[in-house]
């Protein structure tokens, strides 16, 4: 079994009929990088949240399984689940501005997790944090450990969040649009950093993004989502050579590509949208009659 296996996962808002996720299945093998691609509202972040056990309270699991390292997370009591996830998985969040507590120094924000979840002593946690800050190419780690978030730039903060995600040597990292808020030049540095760390540590990575350009640089496989449904699941090379699903093709044609000004940024044809909506409705018909 792959390291992470999501099977037929369906979610909905408590008390409402339409599903947020429609029987989603996907897997991430050890050390694999899989992209989760979709437009806003497609449910891609929701999958990441379900895996990390941080779904909003108003959302419930209708059916499905989430297997992490051979254990079915959804069948576990909450405390045991939290311990497993804390030890084996981590998150690189989207917004480096709000993901760090503005009134605490950087150091403890990285080491807390090591001390509280893994039971390390403070000195060991601190030397680990220093080493990680060095690994994410922060020049004066000792000074940054004592700094407050507002004293650092957006790119710096994103590096710290990456260091923090890798701190407990997780086997799986969910990266939720980690470079959306950054300039392209900084984005490039950060993406290469994540990719390099992922390779060195052999971590599996679930990379949530809306940007197919980023997917082609960082990932090995991808799942394309529309309205909470996986419409295509393919290796990256095959996908970019020839996407199978009409919606995926339209999405790729709509993606900006300055080397091909005529062939890119093509509006998604209405027929394609109608067809994929009909597909979703057909799937709903099976469940709701």
């Amino acid at each position, binding site marked *: 079994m792959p390291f992470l296996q999501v099977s037929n996962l369906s979610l909905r808002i408590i*008390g409402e009929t339409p599903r947020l996720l429609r029987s989603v299945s996907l897997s991430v093998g050890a050390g694999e990088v899989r992209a989760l691609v979709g437009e806003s509202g497609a449910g891609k972040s929701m999958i990441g949240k379900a895996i990390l056990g941080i779904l*909003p*309270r*108003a959302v419930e699991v209708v059916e499905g399984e989430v297997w992490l390292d051979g254990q079915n997370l959804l069948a576990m009591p909450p405390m045991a689940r939290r311990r497993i996830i804390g030890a084996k998985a981590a998150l690189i969040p989207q917004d480096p501005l709000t993901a760090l507590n503005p009134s605490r120094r950087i150091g403890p924000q990285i080491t807390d997790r090591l001390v509280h979840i893994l039971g390390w002593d403070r000195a060991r946690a601190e030397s680990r944090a220093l080493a990680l800050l060095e690994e994410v190419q922060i020049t004066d780690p000792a000074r940054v450990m004592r700094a407050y978030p507002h004293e650092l730039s957006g790119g710096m903060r994103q590096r710290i969040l990456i260091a923090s995600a890798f701190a407990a040597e997780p086997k799986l990292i969910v990266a939720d649009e980690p470079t959306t808020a950054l300039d392209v030049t900084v984005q490039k540095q950060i993406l290469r950093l994540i990719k390099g760390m992922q390779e060195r540590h052999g971590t599996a990575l679930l990379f949530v993004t809306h940007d197919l350009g980023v997917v082609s640089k960082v990932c090995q496989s991808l799942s394309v989502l529309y309205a909470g449904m996986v419409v295509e699941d393919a290796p990256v090379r095959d996908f970019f050579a020839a996407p199978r699903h009409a919606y995926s093709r339209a999405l790729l044609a709509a993606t900006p590509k300055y080397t091909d000004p005529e062939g890119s940024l093509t509006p998604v044809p209405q027929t394609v949208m109608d067809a994929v909506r009909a597909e979703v409705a057909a799937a709903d018909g099976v469940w709701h009659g």
Partner: protein
Amino acid sequence: MVDLTDGRGRVRRRAGVRLWLSGLWLGLLVVVALLAPWIAPKDPLAQDLFLGRLPPFWVAGSEPGYWLGTDSLGRDVLSRIMHGARIALLVALIAGTVTGLLGATLGLLAGFLRGWVDVVISRMIDIWMAFPPVLFSILLIAVLGPGLTSIIIAIVVIDWTRFARVIRAEAMAQGAMDYVASSRVAGRGRLGTMVEEILPNVLPTIVVLLTLEMGIAVIVEAILSFVNLSISTDDPTWGGMIAEGRSAIHQSWWVLVFPLATLFLTVLSFSQLGEGLKDRFDPVLR
């Protein structure tokens, strides 16, 4: 799209009940206040020493007709509460509205126009807030002399800062939004933008503050009556009744408890009404 982060759906359903209950209580109070002279069972000022300290109707020794008992002078507690509602609501309505208008206007001007207008108004707020409000009001009443008008003036003069501070901060936050820039691109003047664009967006906050302020006005009036600085001591007020009831708490608890409970329910209803109205009529939340 549904907001998944805070389960607002459930909060809203409770807001409906809240609005309904608080509205019911306040509506009842308004009717009672308007019709008090005709529907009060007894004359609130009539004394009868033979009927002093009668307990409420369910306690042994009560007299029919005196539902909530009588005080030490034999005056009917229920009738006095009903007549007291007149003054309480009058103060709430007038003082609340005037305070709200004054404070919100100054807050809007300071927060949106900024510059020297803001400097002047903000300094005034700072200075005002440094006075202890209860002492300030007692001082004011001492200067103005007791009476309904004095109480209202005292509440307005002291409490406008409550509005001004909050509305100023809101107006500043709204002023940074692009729809304000857009209004300027369209060529609208500063005051026009303030009224057309900012005001509708701070209105829900003003409504909430307004209802809170009405509750506060009821309390302030009660406090001033309690320290005997309100209107003439003959007219029944809730604060006056609480003051009188306090001295006789061991002999006749009902003289204290009933006006106190009425006061509590009224203030609570005002604040719940504001929150409920905001949730109900805010198009952005809906």
